[in-house]
């Protein structure tokens, strides 16, 4: 049905819970598979696909766009946090039962790549109440067409923290690469950076995986590719505009 001229195969499959017979599940395009171990794609559940369908649809208004994006972002944060370390921790329950649980370890902070990345801060705060959030502003230089760092403000002790780097759209990865370089220059080890994004391109994923093999990428969906303007295909348009100004 998708009349895309792109050569990459479109992974269309039936989506639904295990107990439901295959022919009762509707089909949808799911995330493109990539061969990198440090890339973690959210489980392609029907609900996630439905949320992505809402935010991709050009007819979805801004209120709905914000709401459905936030739901995906929360799921991304929940998944991202699973990569943080925990230690054994035994407790007693209100009814006196012993429970061999775990306790969260390690300090974290968020780092949003302005402006679209700031849209993900709410979702992070929903899961981590008083998390510190640093900001990085990277813009495309008009003359060189290359990303340029304009501004950053990061927690002073960032080298001791796990960093959740936030940017919803992961196209070529130009600004994300620059942001990671900034974090590394402040002493954050690569393996303590988690890059959270909603929609990624296979090219961006590949660039990253090769350049930062120890950094983990958590994404909701890997799309088919990029168009000539380096927009993700099919993508959802400009995330920042749809979230903030359109």
């Amino acid at each position, binding site marked *: 049905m998708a009349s895309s001229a792109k050569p990459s195969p479109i992974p269309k499959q039936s989506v639904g819970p295990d107990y439901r017979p295959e022919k009762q599940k509707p089909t*949808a395009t799911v995330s493109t598979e990539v061969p990198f171990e440090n890339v973690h794609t959210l489980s392609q559940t029907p609900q996630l696909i*439905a949320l992505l369908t809402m935010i991709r649809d050009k007819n979805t208004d801004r209120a709905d766009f914000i709401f459905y994006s936030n739901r995906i972002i929360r799921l991304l944060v929940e998944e991202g946090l699973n990569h943080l370390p925990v230690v054994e921790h035994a407790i007693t*329950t209100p009814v006196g039962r012993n429970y061999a649980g775990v306790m969260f370890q390690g300090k974290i902070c968020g780092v949003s790549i302005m402006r679209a990345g700031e849209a993900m801060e709410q979702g992070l705060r929903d899961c981590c109440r008083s998390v510190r959030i640093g900001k990085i502003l990277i813009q495309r230089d008009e003359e060189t067409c290359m990303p340029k760092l304009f501004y950053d403000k990061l927690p002073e002790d960032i080298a001791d923290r796990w960093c959740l780097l936030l940017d919803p759209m992961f196209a070529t990865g130009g600004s994300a690469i620059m942001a990671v370089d900034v974090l590394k220059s402040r002493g954050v080890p690569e393996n303590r950076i988690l890059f959270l994004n909603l929609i990624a391109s296979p090219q961006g994923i590949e660039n990253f995986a090769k350049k930062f093999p120890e950094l983990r990428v958590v994404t909701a969906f890997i799309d088919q590719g990029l168009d000539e303007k380096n927009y993700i295909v099919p993508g959802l348009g400009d995330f920042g505009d749809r979230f903030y100004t359109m």
Partner: protein
Amino acid sequence: MADVVTQRAHYSPPWADVSIIGIAGSSGSGKSTLSHAIVSKLNLPWVVILSMDSFYKSLDEESSRKAFRNEYDFDSPDAIDFDVLVDRLRELKAGKRAEIPIYSFAKHAREKETTSIYSPHVLILEGIFALYDPRVLELLDMKIFCEADADTCLSRRILRDVEERGRDIKGCIKQWFAYVKPNFEAYVEPQRKVADIIVPRGVENRVAIGKTSLSSHTFQLTYGKVMVIQYIERKLIEKSKSHRAALKKLGQSSENDALSENVILLKQTSQVRGMNTIIQDIDTSAEDFIFYFDRIAALLVENALNNIYFKSVTVETPTGNKYHGLHATGETSAVVILRAGSTFETGLRRVLPDCKTGRLLIQSNIRTGEPELHYLKLPQDIRTHDGVLLLDPQMSSGGAGLMAVQVLVDHGVPEDKIVFVTYFAGRIALKGLTKVFPGVKVVVCTTVPDFEERWVASRYLGC
């Protein structure tokens, strides 16, 4: 695999076989006084009075004019729509919800609205002709005939019609001699023969006339009335006993079964385990408990939504590309099992801020432990919804959950549209629920092997 398809177990809620008591007798013989005395003596929401006045036929124009001139015979069996009455009684007997018409004496017609009756354990059918129609008699568990002398009846009737039905005294007296009295002899009196108990009108005239002073203290029960109350009390105890026994038996019979594939356990990621530790830790502060419970509740609701129904759609992105995705096929609503289920509402609103939400209050009886349905308010169109999330944070014996699903099924929600969402559940309770309702899906975060006393709601709500 065929053997794995578990046999459906049967669950019968305490309202499935409602006991119906018919109370007939002449106008003014004390039927409704007796009914109300019984209800106020028992003071239970499961004993409901159904007045046959609700089943007067709507009058056509001519009959209506007659009625306003007090020339229509309301005291003949022809004035009663027995077909509708029998239908409604049969629905109630089957444990279903019944829509009872509302008759307007001012308009002599049925109102558009109806009153619904659902889940009484004992129903008192009260009316002049409660023991008249053989189809009704078949449905009655006890038949009572109220008797009083004609003078008393007339005076009581005048009082009632003037005070409650806006008639004038002259009209009342006219009706009495034209219709009431002859009808009594022809149709009312003969019902005496089929009655199990005949309750004579005696010492309580004083009370009956001074209606406002009616209470169980001033009301002196005659022997017949004591019998009625004892009968109902015995019935209620029997129903409660068999309900509890059925629940127990269900637990025992499913103890060794495997957990059904319809039970979806939240993936035990390190975050989920960490949150579980905080939530279960008795030393966790109320603030942290609520924060982490809300977070996990939102995750549970997100997971529950994977079990509703979707259809393929193709949408266009702002950049002109097509995406082949999914949309939910219909509306999803939620039903909260109070009180505990209200702890899920913050999580629910994060995911579905505007979903219609029904509420039902099920409390376990302090003495017997039997779950009892006290209150019920569901979205009008719930039967048309494509997904109904039933929310209760903790399944202990599973009795409340079973009852809640039964309520939804009785209201026309298909089993396979119901997703039961719970945080903490005993596996025996889970097995029981999926055995009785094999179409229902359950999404749960944590399971324990057996029954555990409820603690989630009191931690969340602080009392």
